[in-house]
């Protein structure tokens, strides 16, 4: 029997690479992350790898599996999304909307729930427990409410769910990174296209009244010395010795 697996993911700006000054610039320019590199949300990346591993388990068991990935976002993330074809996803769908859903987890969950219903349902829905941006960490519970499907958190990917349909929210997983595609797989994936569906959120969209950055910068004093031994001696005498006495 065919097992249908859906993985919901989000493409987010790689904010770890931003400097303090760039953060101020982002806020000044109305939260424009245009210059920032894009990446998969870290928990969503684990969920995508989870899906592939479950697919591998099913294939070993000689069962057929359909792997679909879906995201809500803009066209500018398609280059990154296309890599999912290369690692093994057969169907990738992008729900395109002009609305900024960063702070509206219910709107995101509603669009995903509509997609699930229109696709005829899935046996297992995977998604990361939290994605960058709004950081609400609520979409999986809201999806569970909307679909009437139980939701569990998962870290390990060793067995299939005992009862289905079910939603798995992937947290700090044992396999947090997506597998790497071969050059041949990447070339084959280049010919495939991401299905785009225009959508309009049917619930209120929220925006913050105010966004700001706290300036909690410390003023670093670098320890000087010609050699490692001199610098470490300075660390010990100026800092550690006093603390270790206590």
């Amino acid at each position, binding site marked *: 029997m065919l097992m249908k697996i859906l993985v919901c993911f989000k493409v987010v700006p790689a*904010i*770890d690479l*931003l*400097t*303090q000054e760039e*953060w101020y610039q982002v*806020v000044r320019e109305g939260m424009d992350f245009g210059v920032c590199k894009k990446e998969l949300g*870290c928990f969503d990346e684990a969920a995508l790898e989870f899906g592939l591993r479950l697919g591998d388990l099913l294939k070993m068991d000689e069962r057929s599996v359909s792997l679909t990935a879906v995201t809500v976002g803009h066209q500018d993330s398609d280059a990154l999304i296309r890599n999912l074809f290369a690692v093994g996803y057969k169907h990738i769908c992008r729900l395109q909307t002009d609305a900024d859903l*960063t*702070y509206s987890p*219910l709107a995101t969950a509603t669009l995903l729930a509509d997609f699930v219903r229109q696709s005829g349902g899935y046996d297992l829905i995977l998604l990361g427990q*939290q994605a*960058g*941006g*709004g*950081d*609400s*960490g*609520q979409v999986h*519970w*809201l999806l569970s*409410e909307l679909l009437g499907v139980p939701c569990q*958190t998962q870290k390990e990917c060793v067995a299939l769910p005992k009862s289905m349909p079910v939603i798995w929210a992937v947290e*700090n997983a044992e396999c*947090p*990174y997506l597998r790497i595609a071969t050059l041949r797989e990447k070339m084959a994936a280049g010919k495939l296209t991401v299905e785009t569906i225009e959508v309009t959120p049917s619930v209120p969209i*929220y925006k*913050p*009244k*105010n*966004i*700001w*950055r*706290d300036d*909690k*910068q*410390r*003023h*670093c*004093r*670098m*320890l000087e010395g010609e050699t*490692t*031994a001199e*610098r*470490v*001696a300075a*660390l*010990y005498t*100026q*800092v*550690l010795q006093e*603390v*270790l006495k*206590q």
Partner: protein
Amino acid sequence: MRVVIICIISRGWEQQLPILLEAASKLTAEPEIWLIGCKEELLLPLPPSCYTEALPQPRVRQISYDLPMPTAEDYLAILQPMVENTAPRAILLDGSILSKELATRLAFRTGGRSITGVNEITNSPDGLMVTRGIYSCNLNATFVVEESPAVLALSAHPQLDADDNNSLETAQLVLAMGRGAGDKASRDKLYELAQRMGAAVGGTRPAALDGYFPIERMLGISGTSVKPELCITFGASGATPFMMGINDSKLLVAINSDPRALIFRYCDIGLCDSCDAVAEELLKIVPNETGKQIAD
């Protein structure tokens, strides 16, 4: 304004309840506490810090259950009709995973709006003003919540494992590793150093995922937050989600071989060098368990 605090008696509830009361005091002079536990737990007294001059006798509604291991659905079955009958304007919960789930589902089922990771709540003519961290707490955002009930889960975490000598939360000295801490041999030196200094070991998410230490010892926004006298980081880049977990350290020392590492902007003292070399030199200086330094 009717404000309800939902507090489930579980590990750390004594620390969380005063925090919730303080947050609620910004909205009303008389918040109501819904204290949920089994019959024996409900016999426990409220923590002394719940009794303040402004609120000498908090209003408590005790809700007992008779289930060995209640799930979120069990709690919701109790709470949803109570919320529908009393129609509070705001409901406050702590920052545990269970509370976030309850906040989300309760708001959905009662037609309200939930926000998690809340840092501050105030009242305004437009509605409730709710502040929380966004973009891994690199930024703060204030939202106006007009919907009722506003079901808000705070960002505070309970202080767990306080009895554990090696607890990160209570450690006065923390040694934090990043992925730049080096190979297995280097990390062994750092563990030896931590043992000699009596430091608790933790570190960044990438280092935890690479098996440098158990995932429970991950520091940062999705791990533990520490407030030691001294935190020394080895090979951590200074990514904000990690820094959120160590920012409250009294003194922050960073060791990194990259002079442009972001962490040098956020620490008090920096040492630009190889983590392995620094660990090796420190092991020569820091006394071992017998109090003797190891000679070259």
